[in-house]
């Protein structure tokens, strides 16, 4: 017969494992700092991107979500990195899905500034990194998908997040 502390530990482990599943959706109105008294909200999501070994499968996990008040300007899409995380926003009102591209946290290319004024790029590989995204709340947004995009593997879906009303 299992001791009570062992059973409790097992229950805790079970729930912690399944917490990841619970995070496969967010409800904007339940996010910290969500002010129901204002009309416009901006959502901030942080994903931990990991790889168990070099060239291994890339995984994503939502580790932080928070809301702020206000409106964002449209800053468009700037850099197009060779290695990137593609974030696709899906809407329920027949709008074309919107793709946004971010630097891949595991394959960053950092800009190095020398004191003589010269610049260069340096590839910084890692097995763990953070992807931070920010977007305007939209009642019609119903899903966000993350893809790891690299020249050798193409686009591989790594996360799907339902956005519930």
């Amino acid at each position, binding site marked *: 017969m299992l001791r009570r502390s062992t059973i409790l530990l097992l229950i805790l482990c079970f*729930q912690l494992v*399944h*917490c990841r*599943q*619970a*995070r496969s959706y967010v409800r904007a109105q*339940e*996010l*910290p*700092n969500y002010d129901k008294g204002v009309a416009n909200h*901006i959502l*901030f*999501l*942080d994903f931990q991107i990991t790889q168990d070994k070099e060239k291994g499968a890339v995984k994503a996990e939502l*580790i*932080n*979500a*928070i*809301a*702020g*008040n*206000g*409106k*964002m*300007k449209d*800053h*468009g*899409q*700037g*850099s*197009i*990195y*060779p290695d990137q995380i593609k974030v696709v926003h899906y809407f329920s009102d027949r709008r074309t899905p919107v793709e946004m591209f*971010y*630097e891949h946290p595991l394959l*960053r*290319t*950092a*800009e*190095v*500034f*020398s*004191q003589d*004024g*010269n*610049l*260069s*790029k*340096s590839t*910084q590989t890692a097995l763990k990194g*953070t992807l*931070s995204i*920010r977007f305007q709340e939209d009642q019609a947004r119903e899903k966000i998908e993350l893809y790891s995009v690299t*020249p050798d593997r193409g686009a591989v879906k790594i996360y799907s997040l339902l956005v519930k009303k």
Partner: protein
Amino acid sequence: MKTSFTAIAGLLLLSIGVAAQKFPVDTIYKAGAIDNRVNIVILGDGFTEEELPKFLNESKKFADFFLSYSPYNRYRNYFNIFSISTPSKESGITNPGTAFDAYPDQPVETKETYFGSSFGNYIHRLVTISRYTTLSNLMAMNFPSYDLIVVLVNSPWYGGSGGSFAVHTLHEQANKIGVHEIGHTLTHLNDEYWAGSGYGWEAPNMTSNNNTATIKWKNWLNTSHIGVFRHGDGDASNWFKPTTTNCLMEVLHKEFCNVCREATVERILELVDPVEKFTPDNEEAVVMKENGASFSVELLAPNPNSLMVEWSLGGKPLDAKTQQVDIPFSALYTRITDLTASVFDSTFTSRQDDRKVRRTKTITWKLERKDIPLNFHVVADRDTVCAGESTILTAQGCLGTLNWSTGEHTEVIKVTPALSADYTVDCYERRTDNVHPAAIRIVVNALPTVSASNTGPYFKGAQIELKAKSSDSYDWIGPDNFKSALQNPVIKNADTVNQGTYTVTTKNKAGCMASASTQVFVDPLPVVDNDLHSSVQVFPNPTKGSIFVKVKPAGSSDFILYDVAGREILRKTFIQTTEISLNKLESGIYVYSLSNGKNETSGKLLLE
């Protein structure tokens, strides 16, 4: 079970919320409303509570440096700059001291700081933060609408990094890192040094087009070192930049080049509207009184002021170039007259061709003289069009809402009728609920019918015969500057330059045009070589499957069959006689060549 999982997630999220804090947002420069300015937020790392005044001082120094940098200096009042003071437990940032280029005199130390900033493990001067969720929470709680973030880290040693936000130390040369990075994040400029394979893309200061007539910075060529410079060899050879070692996007000790300045100004003007407000409101018509009325626009002037204001009344320009005009009652002759103010930034820092069309802001008021009867009607840009063409319909003189027969409600609509049609529109007068109808008929003329063909394929030296069927005029164009007004033109002595698409355009009496095209193939083989031609038999021709080839001269002969596109389909070498099966080929016209020693001939073959 699901409920418990969700609850746990909720608890976790709540704990994140508790960790996020409100901090004072200090205003360094506030020029106007958050939603009509570019908002830069400066953050600090490695400053203890006691050192926060130092952080504020450093933030102001960076803000002053940024706002004095060209072209931002001209548009200082288009920016708000704020700082958020977040105290770190320890002063300074981590120095792992492991990189090959670590500064020998800098102490190796680990510091507990708000954003976890550190010099690089492998490249020392690469200074980055590590606590991204802390940053997200801070911005969500304190300034979610930010446009740009700059993180100042409390270290006198040179270092910094780019990405979605700039990070740099307090070293006197490091502030240019922030300005360079803002070039990326605000203006989407690319680096003008070659960053490596995969880093070439179309950007305001990078292109694969090196045609000086069409390159995106063509209006700056041959001024201030601007030209067309190849990035380098290999992959880099496909990409071009406007200057070399003369721009902040390539080397930190240079200013922005003119092309990057232009892109920066265009970007600022995309984000910030130079018209701050206008009076009176234009939601409803302005009822004019006998003593007239004043109209004004409040502008956000750059320094020097390059804004131009133009006014027009009823479509006619007024002399006024000022921010206010007075319109006398007597200047209005119809019930409704439009007054328009157009505002354009004529800054010399931009030479883009379409800048005036793209960036002119227009405010329109409807001025109403109640003593003149309402004349609601519709006008068409063109009331007669050819099938497939569009025309613009404008409802004029309505003081209320519109309802077109197309279901649209705007003053101006675009229609593309397939056949002649009547368009109606109702004006629902706002004040009286009266409905005023108006209508217009758009006449649609049919397009002429036309077809084009040719008698090919042809051999080199043959006569090309083009044929058109239409009842109207003919206007042929084709390869090698071919032009003809004949119905069935011919081209003698065909050559490969004559191969290609020939298009005939015809116009009917109503002025409507239609076109048709035909593809001409010219085989490079000569039509006939008399020496061999008379000695060769290829039969049956037309054939349903196999052919026999007989050649009188002894010795080896080569038979090659091509399709009409000139692709080799089969080849056979034989002596005097052979049978060739064509069963696997599709029906159509083929061309063969046959050579025997130095003699050669060719011909057409029809496979049924």
